[in-house]
């Protein structure tokens, strides 16, 4: 874990209103694994840090992808090149990919693309076939960036790719399903693929395991910490009905 001042060095739009921000954060990038996140602090921003999945690492550069949903994300998107944020990470437990567990399906809804580039790269490193299934409201909300062997798109309005939920596009029998998106979508993932690994969202206080603010209700009873035991869960382990759905991925 590191905490450092990370300067913004780049910004690109990958879907309508969806931006990738590039920060210089070498030591964090060097350690980051797919599914882990960074907690970004804005010098003159809101009190608490904001968690973002590590989207991509290129050399010294660590990238995150986001939309403006509130004060923190708006301020991040207003940063000018050269301005710095405090970057804390990498945090949380990564996806567990196994070279033996067969082909990989990456399933993302909207901003759920966030951890998937890292996951695609790791899967390819392990020599696994990778298909990315990506859904969004309509064509312009689909991210232009994807990795792996192939991508399958679906839109709610049918303006590009298949029509309807991306979940319907995922065939049965894939070895390893990794999913990220609004909590209600992940609940549906859990119903279809109980063993899928899902990247969850909760409110976070510290991001480092000390506040117990990021409680994830477990089927086994009790709660654990999205920032420490999570944010990656086996879909069947989460008690979805007790997990609030009103977070930012939900539009």
């Amino acid at each position, binding site marked *: *874990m590191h905490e450092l001042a990370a300067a913004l060095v780049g910004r690109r739009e990958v879907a309508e209103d969806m931006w990738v921000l590039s920060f210089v954060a070498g030591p964090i990038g060097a350690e980051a694994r797919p599914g882990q996140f960074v907690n970004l602090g804005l010098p003159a921003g809101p009190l608490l840090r904001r968690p973002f999945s590590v989207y991509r690492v290129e050399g010294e550069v660590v990238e995150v992808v986001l939309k403006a949903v509130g004060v923190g994300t708006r301020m991040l998107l207003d940063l000018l090149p050269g301005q710095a944020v405090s970057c804390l990470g990498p945090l949380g437990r990564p996806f567990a990919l196994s070279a033996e567990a067969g082909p990989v399906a990456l399933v993302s809804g909207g901003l759920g693309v966030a951890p998937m580039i890292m996951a695609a790269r790791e899967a390819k490193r392990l020599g696994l076939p990778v298909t990315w299934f990506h859904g969004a409201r309509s064509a312009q909300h689909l991210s232009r960036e994807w990795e792996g062997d192939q991508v399958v798109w679906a839109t709610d309005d049918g303006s590009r790719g298949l029509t309807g939920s991306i979940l319907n596009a995922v065939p049965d029998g894939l070895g390893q399903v990794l999913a990220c998106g609004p909590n209600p979508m992940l609940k549906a993932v859990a119903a279809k693929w109980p063993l899928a690994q899902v990247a969850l969202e909760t409110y976070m206080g510290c991001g480092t395991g000390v506040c117990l603010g990021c409680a994830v209700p477990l089927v086994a009873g009790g709660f654990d910490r999205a920032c420490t035991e999570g944010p990656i869960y086996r879909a069947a382990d989460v008690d979805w009905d007790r997990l609030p759905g009103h977070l930012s991925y939900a539009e």
Partner: protein
Amino acid sequence: MSPALSVVTGGISLKGPVMAASGTFGYGTEVPLLDRAALGGMVSKGVTLRPRQGAPPSRIVETPSGMINAIGLQNPGVDAVIADYAPKWAAWDFPVLVNVNGETVDEYAEVARRLDGVPGVAGIELNISCPNVEAGGMWFGNDPASAAAVTQAVRRASKLPLWVKLTPNVTDIAAIARAVESVGADAISAVNTFTGMSIDLHTGQPRLANRSGGLSGPAIRPAALYLAYQAVRAVAIPVIGIGGISTAEDALEFLYAGCSAVQVGTATFVNPRAIANIHQGLIAHLSHKGVVTLAELSRIT
């Protein structure tokens, strides 16, 4: 000569005046980035007799310069804390107080009894901002009599140094401070969180599953400082200042108000190194003032 910041207060030898506040530092086994040489001491997450799962999410909500939490005292219970953490604490060079909670006087006393004599447990911080189930859910800390009753029971159950942590949600904090002093508290921790609420306009319901929670962070500092100062003026035992401390300047306000040490909570979430930064800032301030101990700092008159 560089300033010496160690301080003996409320029966405990602190390595320095800047402690980690309860519920913001776990059991001391996390926060890897913090230089622990700066840590004067720590207070554990609140502990109860039996394990508690805590409140359902959402448990926290951010507010202007603050946050509200309703964690619901999630903890593995006092026996597990004694078994799993106290042995680690015994090896550390800073003292660990256990934050003790209960729903009845007996429960508080039983937790204290079990902690008595456990190596690694330097003292008890009694959290009286808990609903008294035998008195219709009114908080123990809400009136002098019930605050004194629970303090006295714990005092009898344990020989450990006993700090009592006061709630700010009262009309007359001085009366509560005097009441707990009179039955043997060794120090006062002032203050806990202010009760607060936030409503989600999408759902039309409170954001916290628990509906209300405790407001902490810089937002409360001026009010916490005032209350800590009222406690200082009311009692002869030491007062530990708590509430919104993020910088050395913030800590110094409490020290100038007569507090013997301070605890830092929410600031650690924002910056895991906050405690070390505050500690360094205090050293710089003392050097600048040309004094070598905290005791030499002037106090407001």
